[in-house]
């Protein structure tokens, strides 16, 4: 894992003091809320329904036990004993006091964490494949590049007052576990014919009220030139984005309005400008960063057999554990979606337990996933049973990875001031409806994603079943969408028709699932059946 040197530490420490000063000026009345808002947003601090909300970055989703314990301490000391993992591999606290926010940032800085650029019109936390460095299917570990990009885009002088937020994701595997093409800029590491590393570059994706799937603007960008290319993209957007309508300022709108060809042409032209300026980080710096990501000291000669005599454990292994690139090791997924629970929420005590397990069994590494779950990336197969027992005792051994109860949900109207409707109670009711394990396994992969408003924090556009909360004359109402995907077969979900109230939408989801079970052919996932038969048979089941 990457470790700060004195320079990185100096940056976050200075940031804490800067924010302390900004908070002081706000409380003293030197600046008004209009002026303070962008400053607090650049430090992840929102004003939400019940209090301030703080979003802490987990760069590319990787963190360790010391960091997790600090997150737990902060939850206990400054919040109400829990945190919420988000779809962008961050963690949010819901009950923060403005006065205490600088102290929290100072505590985070002691464990090499921060909230820099986790909101506001800035280059956000870089997200990555949660199995990076462990996945059997990856070309290389994408995290050194993600870290390099993190540094290059931190406090970028030209791009700190962007038209809107800018989200980057990096992966290096054919399977997309990071919702790649739903990002403003998406990078997939590939090798060219000569075996050199480079990026396949996608641009112009995003959700929100006008969803777009990013399109490919470069087949192969030599890896060393990534910073020049990113700056070119950012400059074209910064200069030409609309500035008159906050809803039309995301890069996806510019790309759409200019057209793919023209956008690409402008980026390529600006790219030449940046190449000439020689701002790219040298190979030596990449190598320095990459050295922190050398594989942990895996043991060799380990067996692959797992004692499956405990049926509950066997069930968990079959669903939550996936292949590791090293023999004798496995990747263990920790579900934060217990039946009837709040998706992504985790108590401080649970955080401590996950920290202990990571330290003891996973080379001190934890990952956060965009599906609001956690991962222990490097567990010896022989240790899985012990890990499972500890998770089970802590209420963290739910079996539902990618199943119908593994629901993504944004905070919705229970916490969010922008919401139209509550998301969490819906996730709870749907998971209760489908609690039966055999039925879940029979249904198979089915990703439900719920947002409490059009901003799409819950990824409803990418839901195989998506749910969108709307306000219908002051009451909560829910629209049903079908057919989205955030994986390598990216697609945008379509609205089925008129919306439902809370009870109605749960029934509609169930009718959709039952229709799939009637229609499916052997081996078909829900999404496959939907793509084969289209919307109509489902509409008929839903609306009669």
């Amino acid at each position, binding site marked *: 894992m990457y470790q700060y*040197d004195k*320079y*990185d530490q*100096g*940056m976050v420490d*200075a940031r804490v*003091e*800067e924010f302390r*000063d*900004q908070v002081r*000026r706000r409380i003293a009345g030197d*600046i008004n809320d209009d*002026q303070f808002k*962008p*400053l607090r947003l650049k430090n992840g601090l929102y004003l939400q329904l019940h209090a301030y909300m703080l979003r802490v970055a987990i760069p590319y989703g990787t963190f360790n036990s010391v960091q997790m314990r600090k997150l737990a301490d902060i939850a206990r000391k400054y919040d109400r004993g829990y945190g919420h993992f988000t779809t962008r591999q961050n963690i949010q606290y819901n009950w923060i006091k403005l006065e205490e926010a600088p102290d929290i940032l100072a505590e985070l800085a002691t464990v090499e964490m921060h909230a820099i650029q986790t909101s506001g*019109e800035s280059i956000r936390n870089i997200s990555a494949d949660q199995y990076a460095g462990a996945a059997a299917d990856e070309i290389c570990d994408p995290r050194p590049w993600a870290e390099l990009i993190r*540094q*290059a885009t*931190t*406090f*970028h*002088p*030209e*791009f*700190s*007052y*962007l*038209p809107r937020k800018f989200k980057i994701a990096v992966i290096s595997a054919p399977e997309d576990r990071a919702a790649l093409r739903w990002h403003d800029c998406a990078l997939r590491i590939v090798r060219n014919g000569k075996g050199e590393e480079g990026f396949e570059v996608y641009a112009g994706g995003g959700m929100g009220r006008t969803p777009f799937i990013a399109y490919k603007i470069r087949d192969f960008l030599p890896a060393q030139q990534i*910073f020049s290319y990113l700056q070119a993209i950012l*400059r074209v957007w*910064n*200069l030409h984005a609309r*500035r008159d309508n906050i809803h039309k300022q995301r890069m996806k709108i510019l790309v759409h309005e200019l057209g793919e060809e023209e956008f690409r042409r402008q980026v390529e032209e600006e790219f030449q*400008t940046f190449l000439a*300026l*020689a*701002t790219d*980080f*040298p190979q*030596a*710096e990449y190598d*320095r960063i990459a050295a922190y990501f050398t594989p942990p000291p895996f043991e060799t000669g380990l067996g692959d057999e797992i004692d499956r005599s405990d049926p509950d454990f066997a069930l968990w292994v079959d669903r939550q554990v996936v292949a590791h690139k090293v023999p004798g090791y496995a990747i263990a997924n920790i579900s934060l979606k217990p039946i009837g629970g709040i998706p992504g929420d985790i108590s401080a005590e649970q955080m401590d337990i996950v920290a202990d397990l990571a330290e003891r069994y996973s080379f001190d590494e934890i990952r956060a996933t965009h599906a609001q779950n956690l991962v222990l990336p490097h567990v010896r197969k022989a240790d899985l049973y012990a890990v499972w027992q500890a998770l089970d005792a802590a209420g963290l051994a739910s079996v539902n990875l990618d199943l119908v109860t593994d629901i993504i949900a944004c905070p919705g109207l229970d916490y969010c001031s922008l919401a139209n409707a509550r998301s969490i109670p819906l996730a709870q009711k749907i998971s209760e409806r489908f609690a039966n394990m055999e039925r879940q396994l029979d249904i198979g992969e089915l990703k439900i994603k719920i947002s409490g408003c059009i901003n799409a924090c819950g990824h409803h556009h990418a839901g195989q079943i998506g749910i969108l909360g709307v306000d219908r004359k002051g009451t909560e109402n829910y629209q049903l969408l079908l057919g989205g995907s955030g994986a390598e077969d990216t697609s945008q979900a379509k609205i089925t028709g008129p919306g439902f109230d809370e009870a109605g939408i749960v029934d509609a989801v169930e009718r959709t699932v039952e229709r799939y079970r009637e229609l499916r052919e052997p081996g078909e996932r829900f999404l496959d059946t939907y793509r084969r038969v289209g919307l109509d048979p489902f509409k008929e089941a839903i609306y009669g």
Partner: protein
Amino acid sequence: MADFRYRDDQPHEEPAVTLDAFLEQPDATAVRLEAGEDARRLIPFLDRLQLIEISFPRFRDGRGFSSARILREAGYKGELRAEGDVLIDLLFFMRRCGFDSFVSQHSLNPADVEAALNRYSHVYQNATDEAVPIWKLRHG
């Protein structure tokens, strides 16, 4: 007069003309760019210009950062002034993009300005200033 100026030469106080006026009759030595105007159109005239003023109508509108860098990268050496909704927390970035004077519609406290400009002793990336990026410090 600039509120804050970081240059040693004599202030140049000829009133700035608009970009359109300048392009029509390029004999002025001071030009004002509105947000959204294309800084590259000034590139042919950079050696005769002594003051370019870039407006920040709202602090959220960051186009001026790119305009400034474009001018400096094209070799402009004269005064580059940020004018308008210029807040303390923008100054550090503005300096790095090549601005060397500021006229703010707010009254900025000089001590706060000093603190803001000196907050960060290092930077991660190259820009148009002299600051040495951290990667270079790391590798000597």
